[in-house]
């Protein structure tokens, strides 16, 4: 057995902690962003007052105030619920949502103690499939919450969530396979480094330009996977009170959102890594920067300089994509349930299959990798 060195163990743990810390911060910040964006769309002001001491900073103190409020609320468990599952349900999305952050590629690699440290904490040879595997488990939180609440509305919400998840996961998987053909790997790091090249002399070699159909299908399905509007049929306040959330309150209620937002963040990171070049700056690849800066700073130091730049670029792209999520949420109304199922099975799946076959034929003639 190959022993892992202490450096590698420590750096892996630190990277995991970085992922979990960022993933956990997404929920409070996004809740503020969503309320402000909603207000802007509806010509209101939104939460803009709560600050820290006398600094208002656009109302960014609001998430802290919300968290304090939620923590000190009475933790009420209705007497008719199935207690064990009721308590367990909110934990499932949090665990899966935070666990999946370990597979985020933050950068290429750095050298610590003469050892190469991969900046993707968990880099299995099955690559990004790990993210799919963990994200497909998050739905159990919703279904369990729906069932254990012992409430018809909750149960309907849970049922809808599980049916929706199964329907959209098929199209999602199918939409990603063309990218695997094109890049010839499942490894996100390899994909990202391929995308740093330049296509036709002026476009960045992004997955988006190679597989635009895949991108559209994938984008639609991640809305459904993360239970976001227009696909939040599991909550759907108009018909189901609050769906699976009906019987939940205080911190247990917000735990669902913590998991949901964390999952949304990871899905955005996955999209960015596969279609938008991940941590690479368009046109200026890290390889180029490394060649430019290495003579003055030395290779090891340059890699350390590139690490925060890479993280910054990745987060910038992810923030733009998440802003798009918010924009869609307040622009497109919720689907009806039959429309949702029709979209998934009648439109997305056949399109994804045709896309898959066409890409397979093209890749058989043109070698992309």
């Amino acid at each position: 057995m190959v022993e892992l060195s202490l450096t590698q163990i420590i750096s892996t743990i630190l990277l995991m902690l970085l992922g979990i810390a960022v993933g956990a911060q997404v929920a409070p910040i996004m809740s503020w962003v969503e309320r402000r964006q909603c207000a802007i769309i509806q010509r209101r002001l939104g939460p803009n007052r709560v600050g820290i001491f006398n600094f208002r900073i656009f109302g960014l103190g609001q998430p802290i105030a919300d968290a304090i409020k939620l923590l000190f609320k009475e933790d009420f468990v209705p007497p008719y619920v199935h207690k064990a599952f009721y308590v367990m349900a909110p934990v499932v999305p949090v665990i899966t949502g935070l666990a999946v952050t370990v597979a985020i590629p933050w950068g290429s690699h750095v050298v610590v103690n003469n050892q190469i440290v991969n900046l993707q904490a968990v880099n299995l040879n099955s690559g990004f499939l790990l993210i799919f595997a963990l994200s497909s488990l998050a739905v159990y939180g919703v279904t369990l919450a729906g069932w254990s609440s012992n409430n018809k509305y909750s149960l309907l919400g849970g049922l809808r969530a599980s049916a929706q998840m199964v329907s959209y996961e098929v199209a999602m998987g199918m939409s990603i396979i063309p990218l695997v053909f094109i890049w010839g790997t499942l490894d996100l790091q390899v994909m990202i480094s391929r995308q740093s090249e330049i296509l036709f002399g002026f476009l960045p070699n992004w997955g988006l330009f190679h597989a635009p159909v895949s991108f559209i299908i994938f984008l639609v399905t991640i809305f459904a996977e993360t239970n976001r509007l227009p696909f939040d049929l599991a909550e759907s306040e108009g018909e189901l009170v609050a769906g699976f959330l009906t019987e939940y309150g205080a911190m247990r209620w917000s735990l669902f959102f913590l998991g949901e937002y964390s999952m949304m963040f990871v899905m955005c990171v996955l999209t960015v890594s596969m279609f938008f070049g991940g941590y690479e700056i368009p046109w200026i690849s890290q390889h180029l920067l490394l060649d430019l800066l290495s003579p003055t700073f030395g290779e090891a130091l340059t890699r350390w300089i590139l690490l925060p730049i890479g993280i910054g670029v990745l987060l910038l792209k992810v923030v733009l994509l998440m802003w798009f999520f918010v924009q869609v949420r307040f622009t497109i109304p919720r689907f009806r349930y039959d429309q949702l199922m029709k979209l998934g099975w009648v439109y997305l799946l056949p399109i994804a299959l045709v896309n898959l076959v066409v890409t397979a034929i093209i890749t058989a003639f043109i070698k992309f990798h």
Partner: protein
Amino acid sequence: MAIQISFLIMGILAVFLSGMMITRKWPVTAAMLLIIIMMLLAGMYGVLGAHFSAVAQIIVYAGAIMVVFVFVIMLLNLPPEELRYGRITINEIILIGIGFLGALFLGTKVGLGYLVSGLNSTTLINARPPYYPAEMNENVKNVSTLMFTDYLWAFEIVSFLILAAIVGSIVIAKKAKVNNAKSS
């Protein structure tokens, strides 16, 4: 050594939870235990270095098939009082006995194999550790190469069988609809 220990812990836990699963009264509890067992199996594959099998196990079984199971259980949503548990018949006892003996036989055979031949000669130990850089991306490659060369026919036949099952279920569902329409 860490590999063997975690493998053993997960194996024992999986067997224990399987026993729990078949004795639960609430179907939802049983389904949840089954999900945990699936994940333990995935963990066992992962510890052996078969990452692709591990991830596929979670995606296919825990992530898709069990979601449908849970969906159906919740759709019916029967409390345990309404589920009629029949008495165990003598045939069932015999079947359980045979199964138990078979498991015991297999278990002791494998277990004795361990003890006799020593721990080092088993495949468990020969499995490569998962995080060896040179082996990156080899696992998926090996699986797919085998699947599309040596086992291509088996693979195609299995996919045809599954297709037949899907078509069959559609036919059955359609028939039931026609009958309902006639009776009403």
